[in-house]
């Protein structure tokens, strides 16, 4: 049982079932779905608020959607980073790298190109998350588990958009 903590990967079914239990725990003790993307909007809001304390009253989004607060949702972000670090460290899988293997195979080893595309991808990803009102965790897992139509449509579109973009991006690269 303890050995499992040191294994590099678990069966996707076991890891997935664990995430399912965690989502239930979030409903029970936190009274909310397990969704990550709003944490980024909170961090941005706190940065804006540090510059202009009145921004919360000025911008509609903060009043109507996600107020800039340090709360349990925001704490998910450092938590995920620490948890993934612990998991990888226990199995000796911490590797500092700029360019993922699959990317390198198609587009080469240029770190600057990879970081620019990751940055642009992050912008579009966050923009789409806010537009759809959630991400893979909030819609894809917590929302579909509640049989929410908004989440079922969103999750389907995440993959439709993702598959089309990935095929266009890697088309003719031999990957």
């Amino acid at each position, binding site marked *: 049982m303890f050995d499992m903590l040191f294994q590099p990967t*678990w069966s996707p079914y076991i890891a*997935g079932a664990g*995430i399912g239990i965690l989502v239930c725990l979030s409903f029970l003790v936190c009274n909310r779905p397990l969704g990550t993307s709003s944490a980024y909007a909170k961090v941005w809001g706190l940065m804006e608020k540090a510059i202009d304390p009145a921004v919360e009253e000025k*911008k509609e989004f903060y009043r109507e959607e996600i107020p800039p607060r340090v709360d349990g949702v925001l704490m998910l972000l450092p938590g995920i980073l620490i948890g993934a670090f612990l998991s990888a460290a226990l199995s000796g899988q911490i590797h500092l790298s700029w360019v993922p293997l699959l990317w390198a195979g198609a587009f080469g080893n240029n770190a600057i190109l990879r970081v620019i595309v990751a940055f*642009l991808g992050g912008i579009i990803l966050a923009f789409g998350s806010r537009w759809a009102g959630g*991400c893979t965790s909030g819609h894809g897992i917590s929302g579909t588990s509640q049989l929410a139509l908004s*989440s079922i449509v969103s999750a389907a579109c995440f993959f439709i958009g993702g598959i089309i973009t990935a095929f266009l991006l890697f088309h003719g690269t031999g990957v």
Partner: protein
Amino acid sequence: MPMCTRIHHHGKAQLVLGLCVGILFGFLLQKGGVTSYNVIVGQLLLENFTVVKVILSAVIVAMIGIHLLVRFDYAELHVHPGSWGSNLVGGLIFGVGFALLGLCPGTVAGAAGTGALDALVGGIPGMLVGSGLFIGLYPGIKPILCRAPFAAQTLPEFLHLNRWIVIVVVEACMIGILILFAGIGL
């Protein structure tokens, strides 16, 4: 649930619980293999089905778990009303970013924790800027978000069927898909 309700409204407890849930989530994402760019883009290229296996397994457990918690008054549903303008358009935009970054909002933080510097230096700052961009443009986008609302909030309401019948059918379909994947060696 008086005890849980007290915890729900306890700000400091929620900070600690949020961090703990995050740590467990990050741990499970990494163990599941989905904090890796190669695994996620492999899924989008339909070469590696780990992401779908993790998500379906999570939903199979969470769907029954959440509905049992709600049934016995230990939790309530948190469903947002949706629309084509919000969920279809936003979902497709998300998909473009999903493929370019090769990670999603949760797994990009996890990838950074395992040493993926493109996630740490490119992906996470991009997520912050993208959120800020949407926050700034929100007053202009808001009318599109309400365009073509859905007729119902949940699948059972939409189908006018008993919730538990829908749950049993959807659970059976998801388990069937996983068995099918295993059967054809995906």
